[in-house]
């Protein structure tokens, strides 16, 4: 922590000079942005009003922030912290799968194996294998879009649906469905009492309904987000 704060000081001092944004390490330059945020002039660009509706930060960074705040007060506890918070995997990638990655990288160093831009939808063979191995051919390879992850795809799905749809989410649920709906402008503001955003259908899930939503008894939504298991 001390190291980081000394960088902040150094960068803050630099910021007073005209060379504040000279190329630096990634850590330092991102710190510089935050360190000088109050000193830079205001632009003439209106803030996207939808982002102003978002309450607080995204959940998982907020958890991290609180953890760090605790550790700043109790630095002696740093070694004792155990995270059962965010669902982040901890076991190493098994050898066969790792080898797939390594060989994939090695190919790029050969004239025959090198490839540049690939199909935006993913490699044909991978799409076929997903359809076959994971879906028993219930779906066709042409229906599979390979990406960098489910969270990114949820935002892409939202971009496709646009601003005018009404989304329904399980409550409680993965925060991404709600936050992306807000960012897209599908919602109103958050009610201070209920903590719910206007224009989202919250599908209550609890022990009383086996954590499965009773969509039939709720207003219709255009897009229903359902995560199972969750």
């Amino acid at each position: 922590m001390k190291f980081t704060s000394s960088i902040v000081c150094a960068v803050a001092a630099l910021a007073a000079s005209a060379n504040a944004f000279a190329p630096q390490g990634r850590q330092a330059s991102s710190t510089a942005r935050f360190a000088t945020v109050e000193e830079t002039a205001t632009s003439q660009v209106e803030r996207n009003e939808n982002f102003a509706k978002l309450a607080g930060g995204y959940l998982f960074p907020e958890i991290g922030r609180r953890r760090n705040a605790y550790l700043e007060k109790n630095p002696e506890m740093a070694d004792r912290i155990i995270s059962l918070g965010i669902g982040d995997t901890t076991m190493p990638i098994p050898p066969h799968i790792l080898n797939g990655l390594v060989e994939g990288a090695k190919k790029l160093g050969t004239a025959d194996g090198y490839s540049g831009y690939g199909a935006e939808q993913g490699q044909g063979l991978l799409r076929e294998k997903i359809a076959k191995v994971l879906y028993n051919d219930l779906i066709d390879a042409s229906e599979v879009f390979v990406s960098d992850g489910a969270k990114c795809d949820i935002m892409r799905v939202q971009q496709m649906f646009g601003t005018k749809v009404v989304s329904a989410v399980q409550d409680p649920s993965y925060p991404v469905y709600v936050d992306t709906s807000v960012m897209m402008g599908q919602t109103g503001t958050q009610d201070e009492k209920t903590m719910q955003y206007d224009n989202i259908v919250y599908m209550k899930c609890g022990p009383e309904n086996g954590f499965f939503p009773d969509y039939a008894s709720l207003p219709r939504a255009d897009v229903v987000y359902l995560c199972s298991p969750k």
Partner: protein
Amino acid sequence: MSSICAPPSKLSSIFLVAPASHFCFFLAPISNNYTHVFDLSEISVLNSNPTGAAATKEQLTEMVKLCKERGSILVFDAAYAPFIRSDNVPKSIFEIEGAKDVAIEVNSFSKYAGFTGVRLGWTVVPAGLKFKDGSLVRDDFNRVMTTAFNGASNIVQAGGLACLDDEGQKEINELIDYYLENAKILRTTFEELGYAVHGGTDAPYIFVELPESIGGSWDAFSMILEKSQVVTIPGAGFGPGGEGFLRLSAFAPRDSVIEACNRLKETMKLD
């Protein structure tokens, strides 16, 4: 956590006479009355599914049917599918008849093979799924992908292929077994302490019901952090309906899970 229960027939008479969402959502001005609409979202009708966090075939069949009737598109997030071990719990929405008419499925290798940092996922958009004007959803999704994405890393896709051959599948199953065993340890710990616990079977998370004496779920989060240095997630972080719950993840190494449970046995002891 207030959950009002009312007979479904009463609800239908209030809401389903209104044509789709246009009444409730788009055209209605935001007024004081508007919030009453959302009070209803707290209403839940009792049923007796004991599985906790993973939906059964019957539940998903009903959901698909409903979405079809109401003209909704279902976005099914199956990122935790490999944790499913029960027979009656579908791993994909496309195991449900008629799902291709209403559903999109998003998924990921993150939890299959420890690819949270490697980054590889996929989305299935059925060829026949259509918007109201008859245009194909897949065409528009393809447009998003080709315009705003350049394809997953070729290195990572090679890793994805390794996940899908026999040896890769075996490795994935072993990894999942390991995390499921963690989930079981967590679940048993809280059950033995006398808490009601949900999830932890067919899923890598457990959801613990908190007694009111503990305060809100953020209070519980802080108390546990301060007293046992274990980081959890307060249920309220997943939406207002999560208040009164605490979520714990089974993704830590085994030693850490056991150590955390030992500490929680002290911290979370019920009087």
